[in-house]
């Protein structure tokens, strides 16, 4: 059996993350190029929405990523609480800003899509509203963890927030949907709008993969900074090649 706990120590994860992130960044660039090619040059013009629908090639993947990253944060939180590993808290902290950014981008592109389609920048659509609340949950996590000075305490408190949040996200989504149907809101939904052609699905899938790889690269990169900030008194930091000069 591979000794996973060996990599769970910051000292051995720091160089590993350093080796891995460029690969994921390269993958992200490649997927992104392919995804953009499909979304602008292969996917045909939609007969109902014209060229405006091309926004979904980033809107939907950004929404997916924002939800997925929150789940990954909750996963690391659960690991951190059960095994009391230091690295899991750092991973959660490294993921949160990227997740919040994707939630914001999902809202931003949603608004830019909504203006020409619905005639309003913001519509109380179930998906958009849930996304907004998810954005608030990210902000709450970031605000709480940055308000606590002791990083170990911040990690543990953040883990609880992430777990409580992940339990609530489906409830919130369901309740907002329920609320939306009760109020007969906009029934057009972004993803359901046109009968989805396979090329469009491919475009969205490739962009989602690009964002996914980007998130991995970004979190690996950020976790290196977090490790250094927190472990600056540890002996292994002084022996790193980039510290010799």
């Amino acid at each position, binding site marked *: 059996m591979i000794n996973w706990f060996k990599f769970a120590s910051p000292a051995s994860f720091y160089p590993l993350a350093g080796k891995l992130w460029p690969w994921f960044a390269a993958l992200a660039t490649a997927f992104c190029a392919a995804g953009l090619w499909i979304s602008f040059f292969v996917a045909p013009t939609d007969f109902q929405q014209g060229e405006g629908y091309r926004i979904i090639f980033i809107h939907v993947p950004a929404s997916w990523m924002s939800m997925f990253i929150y789940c990954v944060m909750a996963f690391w939180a659960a690991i951190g609480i059960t095994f009391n590993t230091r690295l899991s808290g750092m991973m959660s902290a490294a993921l949160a800003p990227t997740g919040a950014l994707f939630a914001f981008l999902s809202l931003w592109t949603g608004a830019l899509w909504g203006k020409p389609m619905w005639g309003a920048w913001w519509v109380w659509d179930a998906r958009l509203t849930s996304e907004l609340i998810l954005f608030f949950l990210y902000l709450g996590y970031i605000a709480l963890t940055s308000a606590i000075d*002791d990083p170990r305490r911040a990690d543990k408190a953040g883990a609880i927030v992430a777990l409580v949040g992940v339990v609530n996200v489906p409830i919130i989504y369901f309740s907002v949907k329920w609320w939306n149907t009760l109020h007969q809101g906009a029934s057009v939904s972004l993803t359901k709008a046109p009968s989805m052609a396979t090329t469009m699905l491919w475009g969205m899938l490739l962009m989602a993969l690009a964002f996914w790889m980007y998130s991995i690269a970004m979190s690996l990169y950020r976790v290196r900074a977090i490790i250094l900030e*927190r*472990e*600056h*008194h540890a002996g292994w930091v002084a022996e790193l090649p980039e510290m010799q000069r």
Partner: protein
Amino acid sequence: MLQAHGLACDRGDRRLFSGVDFAVPAGEWLQVEGPNGAGKTSLLRIVAGLAAAAEGHLEWEGQAVAEARDAFNARLLYLGHAPAIKDDLSALENLQIAAAVAGRPLDESTALAALRRIGLGGREDLPSRVLSQGQKRRVALARLLCSQARLWILDEPFVALDVAAVDQLCTILDEHLARGGLLLFTSHQAVHLAGSGGSLRLGR
């Protein structure tokens, strides 16, 4: 018998102490000494189970404490820096509620007797807000009189007490030790207790 094996404590990214071993047999005391910031309070909180040790473990009667936390808590009395006194409640109410939370409800006459013995006779029903700092400490100390716990962990119990109260506390502690109780405490002053005991020095 309380035993500690290789306890270590971190505060932030600084190690306060490490490799702390001690054993307190029944009927004996251990005084934790050291300069300010050496980690005396942290050590007591670790033993009480309020804080987690970075390394090491504790045994109570030969059994790991971590495996039987509730049973250990039932035998433990801890008095920290803060006296755990509610200003809006009277001394009597404070004492009775503290005892109920500790799992041993007190009837009123026992509680009153304890308060009288600790020198708060006639002040039992005043709101604790009007009591002096030393009197509030005495309300907390009255819990010792009513306690059936085997292990007492006291953080600076002599602070803010006058001479008479210090003598009285020493008597209470002696009685506890004579019953076969264990005592772990910190104090800046030299304390004369009957029975045998030792001291543990933290910090270099």
